[in-house]
Each structure stands twice: as structure tokens, then as C-alpha cells.
């Protein structure tokens, strides 16, 4: 129908003006808020300098939303709240009302629709969620499935605030780790070098840039069966998968040898300690859909020990720093191996250069 039409030129508006979508009370008190408190799990109460107040109900979602979910939630927001909503970085919805008496009916409506209210304060909030098999071209595992399986098990921790401090869990379905740092991170870890389809390399891959991509210089150009291809020094290869995105014939994913690893103690906030990276605690965990029970069990074990042993306001990373790594491995009953000792650049600074020893 429109085949002959001249293509439409885009209007390059960039990021839209957010002010038009702010709840009117947010807009009126922009930059002039006074304090907040949390009347109950899942609810934030903010008071402005002007005396205006908003109650915000936080509700977990499955992140991938279709028209049914969006209309269901929007109907509730229109009926029980003020028609405005925002999303947190962890795919929770935040719905604000200016009338305290609307809070409980709103929570009830959301709960009745099967959506969990929580994720505030010292809870385990929604897991930050990547794409996985649903949509990425390089994943070693799924993302939505891992998140669903884990949030089913952590539902009580989401709707309550009984952890020492907030817990941010992340997952990543390749070692690129677009889920980022977490108090606990569950990430893919490959354990075998890429398998190369030499028939395709020359056509599909820009060989010099693939060679340049490898962090340990394990890739070199080679002629294989008379065709220009690439070769991997398997002794050097750290199985990171960095060559796979620019060169899909270097298949890194494997149904057996792609495993999961668990990392703890990542923290982005500057509160108390400076931001911290997460550190390896467990690996070799089977990539076991549809519910990944082995990874789930380790996460729950770490959370249980953290809940029992950490002081109030200690994030997982703060807690381990206080009790030390020997105690962490003792309490969680996870094995400590040679792989926990870093050998990457700058790793000397991760060694204990003191006589501080724990007993």
C-alpha cells in the first residue's frame, strides 16, 4: 500500500521531557522534599517542605509486560490511584497517591491481581533482569526464567523488610554481565574454550578485530583446511566468551560446560564504605532450567547466613568485610578453592599484606 511513498524522516527529539509525566504533587514540590519514612513494607511516605504528602506503593512486575498486564495494572492505577506511575531501575512500579486512605485499597487491588507489594527498605527487592534466551544473541542461559524461579522462592523476603539492609540481586546470562554489580550476583561462567566453525569465520568475522578483542591474546589468524580462519591457544584461553559477539562461529555456549557462578558483596551506594565490586564465592553450578535449583539453594543459604549474622545496616559487602572471608566460607559452608585467589591485573592488592589473621 505504502510502497511508493517517500520514507518519513525521523524527528530527532531525543529523550522526552519527563516533567509532563510527573505526578502533579511531584511536579509542584520538585526539588523541595523534606523527609520520608516507611509506614509499612512496600510503602514510602514522602513529605514536602510545602506540607504536601505522597504515599508511594511499590509493586513487583515480571518486567516483560504485554497489553493484558499493562491494562490490568493501569486500570488499578486509574481506579485506586491518580493515574501516574514510574518504574524503578529494577522493574518495580511505583504508584503514588496523595490521600493516605487510598493506600490500603490500592495494595489490596494489586495483591488481588497477583502482583506483590514490597521491595522497599531492608527487603530483597526485584532481581535486575537481563535478556537471555528470549532475546539476546549470546546468552549462556535465560534471564526471565532465572528471575522468576528465584523471586518465587524469595517472595516472602520481597514483601517483608527483615534483612539487615537492602539486598540487590543481579543475574547475567553471559560474562559481559549487563546485570551489573550486586549484593549477590548469579552469572554465567564458561568453562571450555570456544568451538570454532572454520567454514564460516572468513565470511562472518572481521579477523583482526576478533584477535584484538581477546583479553589474553589467545587468538591468532590461521589457515585451516585451506581457508583463512582463527585459532585459539586453548592453554591460554580463559573461556570468557569475548570473541563470540564479534565472531559467532566461535561458539562459546555449551549445554554442559556453560556453568553458573555466584558472586557477593557488590555495592553501588557510597553509604559508609566506598562502592565495591562483587567477589567470587561459588562456581561450577549447573545451568539447570527451568528452575535452576542448585543456584537457588546457594543464594538462599547465603541470604540465611547474612540475615542471621549481619548487623543492622550492613550490606552483604559490609558484613563480609567485618567478619572476614574465612568466616564467610565457614558460615556458608561453601568450599574455598584456588580459583578464589585472583590472578588478573592488579591482583596483588587483593592479597593480605598484614599479620591480620582470623581464627
Amino acid at each position: 500500500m505504502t510502497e511508493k511513498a517517500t520514507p518519513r524522516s525521523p524527528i530527532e527529539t531525543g529523550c522526552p521531557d519527563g516533567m509532563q509525566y510527573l505526578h502533579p504533587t511531584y511536579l509542584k514540590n520538585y526539588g523541595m522534599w523534606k523527609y520520608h519514612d516507611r509506614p509499612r513494607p512496600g510503602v514510602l511516605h514522602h513529605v514536602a517542605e510545602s506540607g504536601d504528602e505522597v504515599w508511594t506503593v511499590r509493586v513487583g512486575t515480571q518486567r516483560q509486560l504485554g497489553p493484558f498486564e499493562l491494562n490490568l495494572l493501569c486500570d488499578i492505577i486509574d481506579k485506586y490511584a491518580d493515574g501516574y506511575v514510574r518504574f524503578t531501575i529494577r522493574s518495580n512500579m511505583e504508584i503514588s497517591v496523595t490521600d493516605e486512605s487510598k493506600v490500603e485499597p490500592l495494595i489490596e487491588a494489586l495483591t488481588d491481581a497477583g502482583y506483590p507489594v514490597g521491595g522497599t527498605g531492608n527487603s530483597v527487592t526485584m532481581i535486575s533482569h537481563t535478556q537471555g534466551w528470549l532475546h539476546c544473541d549470546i546468552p549462556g542461559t535465560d534471564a526471565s526464567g532465572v528471575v522468576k524461579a528465584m523471586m518465587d522462592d524469595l517472595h516472602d523476603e520481597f514483601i517483608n523488610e527483615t534483612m539487615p539492609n537492602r539486598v540487590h540481586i543481579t543475574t547475567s546470562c553471559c560474562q559481559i554481565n549487563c546485570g551489573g554489580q550486586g549484593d549477590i550476583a548469579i552469572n554465567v561462567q564458561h568453562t571450555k574454550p570456544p568451538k570454532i566453525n572454520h567454514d564460516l569465520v572468513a565470511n562472518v568475522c572481521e579477523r583482526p578485530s576478533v584477535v584484538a578483542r581477546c583479553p589474553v591474546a589467545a587468538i591468532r589468524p590461521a589457515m585451516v583446511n585451506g581457508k583463512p580462519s582463527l585459532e585459539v591457544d586453548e592453554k591460554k584461553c580463559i573461556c570468557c566468551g569475548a570473541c563470540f559477539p564479534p565472531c559467532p562461529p566461535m561458539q562459546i555456549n555449551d549445554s554442559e560446560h556453560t556453568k553458573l557462578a555466584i558472586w557477593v558483596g557488590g555495592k553501588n551506594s557510597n553509604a559508609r564504605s566506598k562502592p565495591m565490586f562483587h567477589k567470587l564465592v561459588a562456581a561450577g553450578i549447573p545451568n539447570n532450567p527451568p528452575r535452576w535449583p542448585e543456584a537457588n539453594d546457594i543464594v538462599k543459604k547465603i541470604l540465611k547466613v547474612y540475615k542471621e549474622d549481619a548487623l543492622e545496616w550492613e550490606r552483604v559487602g559490609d558484613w563480609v568485610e567485618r567478619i572476614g572471608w574465612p568466616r564467610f566460607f565457614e558460615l556458608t559452608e561453601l568450599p574455598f578453592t584456588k580459583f578464589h585467589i585472583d590472578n588478573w591485573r592488579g591482583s596483588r592488592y587483593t592479597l593480605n599484606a598484614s599479620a591480620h589473621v582470623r581464627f
Partner: protein
Amino acid sequence: MADQKPKNPEKHSTYLPPMSEKKSSKPFHDTPMLDELESGPWPSFVTGLKRLAMDNDMMVDLLGQLEHSYKTRLGYWKGGTVSVFGYGGGIIPRFTELMDTDGKPMFPESKEFHTLRVQPPAGNHYTTDMLRQLSNSWNKYGSGLIAFHGQTGNIMFIGSTTDNTQHFFDEINEYGWDLGGAGPCVRTAMSCVGAARCEQSCANEQKIHRLLVNNFIDDMHRPALPYKFKFKVSGCPNDCMNSIQRADFAVIGTWRDDMKVDQGEVKAFVERKSRKYVIDNVVSRCPTNALSLNDDDTMTVDNRNCVRCMHCINVMTKALSPGDDKGVSILMGGKRTLKIGDTMGTVIVPFMKLETDEDYEQLQEMAEEVIDFWAENALEHERIGETIERIGLVNFLEGVGIEVDPNMINYPRTSSYVRMDTWDEEADKWNQRKAAG
């Protein structure tokens, strides 16, 4: 809880219409593994996919391919090139790799399953009307499935054919939405809720976010930089946007005068929680020992030594708050593992006022300077943190015209292997800057 019967099953996250209402023509594939993800208290994305599959064949086949991935533990998408007219990026093309023995797609209806990355407003605010409008447009041209939001911050409209990506973009672009970045370019930015609803905010995130990103809109839509470049804005050092770790250019609100203390509220807090609680959870947790609880239950803050970590303010939200002389700190170089290992962003600008138009212009110019320098000096596929690591912070600062500052380091060098024959000149620069105040 979740296993209780819903009050109104048709208005519940577990609802699946009866098969008599199925509009899609293809029968469902068997999905025994995915089906296991339909039980449990968390809303199930699988049930969501099935509801969509009641209406369209693309989702019927998508479920088939996903189940296949669950069985074989392998992914089956490959990239390609798809873009909308006039732009070089913003769409993530996906073509199925699952072929039968004749080389035909096993799941043909979802053989093209592209994603559009669309920039949300700073802070991810919407009206329900706008969410419905976006959903309607996507229903018309795509699978109906939308991810709120991707880890970089985009609204991700998942699942469309090549033709329909253009139609969908044309439609939403008319009512104010634009694509985000993909590839080596300035990417979609992210900002916290901040000034809109958070008393801890020291910045106008909405303004900073749009100023920075929309100034580079050409770089976003036509990828031609060494690699990706991400801006993120957090209103205070709680850094809810994880900007230090995840952004090339992190803007974080802060203040330089004294924090505000409402002594009446301090006393009320001590009364409510006990002296022990305040000592154990506030005073002794201050990283620089800048707090002291007085005998009369008031609090003294050593503001010169407070590093604005936010902890005490987070605990005593009514009694303590940021000061009035607000501005931002800028850190650069955060990124995840590839290729040199993880890097946190580090301080490049310890403090900068953002009040007048000139202040904001200065921020904009600095961002331009930094991106220009990086574009000229980076190796291919090198994030700015890696460039700084490779050439050294001092060379980077000289390249972009920023003076050294002791706030940039944890401690001065410990190695004597350095040539310092211009010491006197450098010391002079410092003294002159100090004299100029």
C-alpha cells in the same frame, strides 16, 4: 498466598483465556519446561507470553523457540542489520538460527524478532494514558511485549518484523518518542527519581539528563564513536543509578556547605530508638568519624570531614539532610569486565555548581570536550575508563583541560620511579590556583 484462588480470576496475573477465545491460527507448541514457570507467587512471564500467543502466531512460535532453548540449554538468535530510515542505530535485529533439515526456520512466525530501544523520560515516569498508548501502538506492529526497562535504561519493544519496526517507529515518533542508542555511540541515559520525589536529591536530574543526552543526539543515532558511552545521573551519593560502576560519565548530586541538623528531631529519634541504637547504627558507622552524639542527645557533625556518604542521613531522614550549597561530582570510567577487568568511575570533577545557565553550559562543554578527546584517542572498542587506564589519568586530564586535584586519588604515588624535573613549575601552578581561590 499465591496458591489461593484469585477473587477475580479474569483480572489476575495468572489468567489465561479459554482456548475457545484463541485468535492465533497456529496451535501451541508443547512447552513442558516453560509451564513449570507458571506456578509460584511471582507474576509469570510465561503466562504473559501465552496470553500474547492467544492473539498472534509470532508469540506461538516464540514460545516454541524458547522451550527449545530450555531443552538444549542454548540460544538461537543471531544479529544482522535493521534500522529505521535516517538512523544507524537503536534497533537490535534478531533472526532465528533454528533451521530444520531443509534449511527452513523451525519457528517461522518468529523468524524475525527485532527489538526497538526507545528512550524513556529521566526517572521513568509515565501516565497510564501514555503507557496504554505505547502498548496499543506496539500491539499493532509488534508482538505486544514490552520490557520496562533494559539494563541500560531503554524501554525495549521486543519482537517485530523488519517492515514493522519502521511503521512502529513512525507512529510513536509522531507523539514524542525517539530511539535510544545501540552500537558504538552515546547510549540512552538513566536518572534516579531524585528531585521529583526524594528529599536527598541535590541536583535537577531531569535537566542534567536531557541536557547531556540530547546534545549528543546525532552521536546516538549514527554510531561512529570508538565504543559505547553512557551517562547516568544520581541525585545524591546513594547513587541509586549505579552510575559509578556502570557509567562512562556519572553525575552525582552533592553539597559543600554544612549538612542540616534538626536537633529537635535528633532528640526525638534518640528518644524513640535509644542512645545505643544511635551510637551503634549512626555514630560508629560514619566512615570518617565525623559524628558525635552529645550528652544532651543532640548531634554534632564535623562537616569538614564528612565525605557525604549519606549513611547518617539515610538512617535519620527527618533529623539530618544535605546542605543548601548544592552541586555535582563527576566521575568517569565505570564499566564491567571487558576487556581490562572491571573499573569503577573515578573522580574527575570533585565539585561543580549547577545553578546558572552558564554552569549548565560548562557541564555541556566538558562532556563535549571529553567525548571529542576520547573519540580521537581511544583504540577501537575501548571504553573511556580503559583509555584513561592506558594513557594515565594525568594525560587524560591534560587532554581535556582539567586541573589535578587531591580528591581524585586515594593516596599519592608510592613508587619513586617517575621523572619529576618540572616539579617547580607544577608546584607553582598549584600555588597560583590556591592564591586565585
